[in-house]
């Protein structure tokens, strides 16, 4: 009984920690967007004041500034849209979805972490074709846990890849890194991953090959009712 309580509590804390990491990351990125917009606005104000004192504003300069405004407003809008999708993933632990939507969402939200590591992240959806009925938050959490495992153990400039493919029993999500890796380096993160995958009745496997390290998550086509009920 105590073990069951501990597992539920551990899952709750891991879920909360994952949610917090994503929110902290996105809010920092959003602040960067606002900061650029704030400086662009300040520059326009500076140029306006100079124009009042007789220094004309060049039309080309105005065009350049408005283009930057548009770029960063679009960047902010995309971030907010993805943050909103992510936040709503906790609304219902059982929905029918295209797994590509989850991966696309997480790719945008994780991009800053990738950039900070001077790494690259590519996604291949060409093998994807089926819809799933699953827990959208838990699948996101599992994907992020894979990514964190690979990030912690990878060399300074790794190339990450996410491959999505459909199979008879569900969807396979393969998260890989071209760097060497030792899963024993972070057992608690591996436990978090296996624990999270269990929440949607999936499976996880780790393969070390010459070309890199591959973590494969299999998400079943439909959620196991019994498993979904264990989620507090």
């Amino acid at each position, binding site marked *: 009984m105590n073990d069951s309580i501990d597992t539920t509590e551990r899952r709750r804390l891991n879920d909360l920690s994952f949610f917090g990491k994503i929110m902290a990351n996105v809010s920092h990125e959003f*602040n960067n967007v606002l900061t650029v917009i704030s400086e662009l606005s300040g520059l326009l104000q500076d140029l306006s004041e100079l124009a009042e004192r007789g220094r004309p504003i060049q039309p080309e300069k105005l065009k350049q500034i408005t283009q*930057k405004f548009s770029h960063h407003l679009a960047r902010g809008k995309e971030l907010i849209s993805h943050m909103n999708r992510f936040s709503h993933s906790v609304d219902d632990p059982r929905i029918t979805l295209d797994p590509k939507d989850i991966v696309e969402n997480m790719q945008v939200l994780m991009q800053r972490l990738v950039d900070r590591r001077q790494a690259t992240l590519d996604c291949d959806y060409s093998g994807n074709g089926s819809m799933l009925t699953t827990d959208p938050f838990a699948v996101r959490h599992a994907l992020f846990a894979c990514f964190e495992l690979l990030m912690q153990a990878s060399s300074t400039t790794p190339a990450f890849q996410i491959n999505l493919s459909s199979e008879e029993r569900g969807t396979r999500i393969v998260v890989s890194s071209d760097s060497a890796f030792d899963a024993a380096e972070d057992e608690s993160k591996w436990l978090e991953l296996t624990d999270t995958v269990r929440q949607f009745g999936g499976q996880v496997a780790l393969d070390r090959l010459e070309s890199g390290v591959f973590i494969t998550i299999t998400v079943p086509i439909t959620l196991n009712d019994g498993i979904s009920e264990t989620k507090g």
Partner: protein
Amino acid sequence: MANAKVLLVDDEKDFTSTLSERLELRDLDVFTADNGMDAIKLAKEHRFDAVILDLQMPGMDGIETLKQLLSGDADQQVIILTGHGTISKGIEAMKAGATEFLEKPVDIQLLTEKIGSAATQRMVLVEERSAQAIDEILKKKGW
């Protein structure tokens, strides 16, 4: 503070280009770098009155960059300007030798004031070191 020389270090290129333009309109001589390694290289080639440094950057982070800048020039005045304005990060940066800790977005007036104070402080420190060096020479030579 006319023509004070400033190094702006941040990986957000549109931020550095826009802020440097605004600082140049205020008669500052501004250099930019988008990573810690380039900042350290520039600081070896030029004498900056102040370095404005972000904490979160790809590769070498801001705290490490700060430490290396100060190991190259103990009088270097470094203003941390970051969106990652947690108290613990601020304390860490000040302990490592930062002059100021400001949060983005920052008011340009406040930033130019801080740059002015940093430039003055650097001048005082350099003058103090020069005076000490002269004293030591005088003592050695017995004049």
